[in-house]
């Protein structure tokens, strides 16, 4: 009997150990680093972070992306998943094509979009060919902040909608067909069916997708760096700058703590806001 009770713990032990060593220990070290400066425990690093000329921009930019991109990604993924339900032949191929961006690294995706959107990029070449512009247009400079934001949002949509889609598609497959059939019998319109049946039953999947996407969006880095460079600071790129360019590990750690707290808060909000009642699980 005793042996059997120990086995589950033995089996999860490597994973727990792994997380302890590679997550909890660095986390504690980072926290310690963030609250130490000038040889004592204080908020010095945080005040230096907040007084930096790029801090406000980094916070605003990060939240702008999260607030704009994540809902769009969810809406797109829901739409795509619903359409996919009606595809009979070639469903796997469509799904496969839609998930291609998942296999591409952040930085590579950034470089792809840079090749499209820079002054001599594909977009300008195309617009020039069809006669819409007579000279190269800039989209990614500090003089065109709205175009820059739009470019990053579009690239982010292209890159990361697929992960939301995959989670939603998995959830949609779990929704029993009987509910939809019953709704049909009572004369529900497709929209009513979607709002009243599909969406509530998808809640757990939506929650998972939102947590994952939001946390990832707060940690956005390589793509923003390649498209926005110095013009579009985000929290993680500032952490990187303080760590490597300024070699000020304390302020970098303070940024890491901020990113962590923000992500944690977002996760808790989702867990609370999208809680499913126990009988619906």
């Amino acid at each position, binding site marked *: 009997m005793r042996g059997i009770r120990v086995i589950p713990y033995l089996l999860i032990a490597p994973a727990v150990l792994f*997380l302890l060593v*590679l997550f909890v220990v660095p*986390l504690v070290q980072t926290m310690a680093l963030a609250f130490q400066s000038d040889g004592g425990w204080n908020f010095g690093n945080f005040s230096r972070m907040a007084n930096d000329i790029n801090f406000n921009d980094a916070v605003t930019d990060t939240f702008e992306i999260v607030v704009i991109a994540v809902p769009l990604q969810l809406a797109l993924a829901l739409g795509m998943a619903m359409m996919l339900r009606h595809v009979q032949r070639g469903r796997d191929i469509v799904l496969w094509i839609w998930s291609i961006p998942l296999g591409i690294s952040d930085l590579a995706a950034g470089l792809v979009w840079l090749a499209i959107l820079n002054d001599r990029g594909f977009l300008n070449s195309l617009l020039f060919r069809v006669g819409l512009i007579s000279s190269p247009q800039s989209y990614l400079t500090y003089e065109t902040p709205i175009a820059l934001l739009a470019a990053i949002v579009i690239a982010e949509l292209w890159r990361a909608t697929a992960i939301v889609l995959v989670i939603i598609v998995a959830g949609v497959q779990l929704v029993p067909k009987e509910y939809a059939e019953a709704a049909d019998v009572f004369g529900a319109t497709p929209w009513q069916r979607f709002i009243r049946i599909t969406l509530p039953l998808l809640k757990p999947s939506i929650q*998972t997708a939102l*947590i994952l996407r939001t946390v990832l969006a707060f*940690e956005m880095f390589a793509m923003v760096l390649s498209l926005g460079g*110095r013009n579009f600071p985000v929290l993680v790129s500032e952490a990187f700058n303080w760590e490597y360019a300024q070699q000020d590990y304390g302020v970098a750690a303070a940024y890491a703590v901020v990113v962590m707290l923000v992500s944690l808060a977002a996760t808790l909000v989702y867990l609370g806001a999208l809680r499913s009642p126990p009988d619906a*699980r």
Partner: protein
Amino acid sequence: MSNGMLSRRSAAWLAAGLLGAATLPAAPRPAQAADLVFLSTQLRPIEEAQKLRNDVLSKAPVPSTFVPEATPEFTVRAKAEIAGGTHTISLLGALHGELQPLATLGALEPLDALATRLAARGFPDNLMALGRFGGQHQLYIPWMQATYVMVANKKALPFLPPGADLKTLTYAQLAAWAQAIQAKTGNRALGFPAGPTGLMPRFFEGYLYPSFTGGVVAPFRSPAAEAMWAEFATLWKSVTPNSTNYNFMQEPLLTGEVWIAWDHVARIQDALRQKPDDFVVFPAPAGPKGRGYMPVIAGLAIAKGAPDAAGAASLIDYLTRPTTQIQTLRSSSFFPTVKATIPNDLDPGLKLTEIGVAEMQSAPDAKPSLLPIGLGDKGGAFDKVFLDTFQLIVLRGQKPHDVLPREGEAMQRIMTDTGAPCWAPDPPSTGACQVQ
């Protein structure tokens, strides 16, 4: 629906893992071979590294493994070896500013005997002095040198203001030139490497400030500096806004997006090598106080506790021979630090650079700036003061009079914290350099 539960749990784990990813420090690369390890931040592009291995190091008296590493990893690895007590690196090759934090830590072996032995090679005294970091001991031997120059596409030359000569260009003429191009073609054709990894801070530290104020730290917030920033902000109106995305000017020069550029010689080489007939190289402009310019020095140092210090010393001996130095020039774009005759059959692009560099150094009003000395690991913070000032005044349009006092305080804090005395072109100081 147990599956819903499952995905929730896994989501929580995933989220936890992702949170962790942001806090993980970068891991240094492990040592590779039993040969002497030569860790370098220079000659990092694969082609240059391969040429150094095949054309230079293969003929060296001591077999070595050349390990190129970017600056952050270089510093982390070198520091980790000291902290961990396991030494794998023997020879270090890096820029003056990258070796400085290691010198501060006492991680570099004094090379006084070697320096005396190699003295006949003809290292310039000022370069040797840099290798002592203001102390008693020679901590590195100058390995290669480079500097920053201006490059112009020949298409830009017809727009030069009347009476302007590239060799004696002033900042006012540069502004007029760029303005003329903008007025006549509609293009903002002047470009600077102000991207995230561009070398723009060096432009302020070694070019703009010395040319306009005659110093760097002391006159940081002087009336001359205020006037300088105002003038530079005006000049910036003819600078392409893509500049804040440029890290290497060779790319926009090659595409024709930029016609006139300032950058490190190594970062324009591709343009010059691919289209030597399209470009001219010329000295940086002059301001009221002269023609500021900054040499770039890479040095060779031996790590304390090196597994093969004797081998590293004989490699330094080999790498600073005139013939090896010329070979290094051919495989990179770094010029010799010893007396060596530049051969005539040099690549045309390199030849252009060599002429530009020589004109810069021999300009009658040349005002050489030393690299920051004694800042330790505050070099990045020092650069940031200039970048922040630039961002606030030039990109965000704030008044120099409002920005400079605040940034001047940040500068003074760095000087006070490090106790760094003034370096040329600032007048020498006793104690920490003071912002006036």
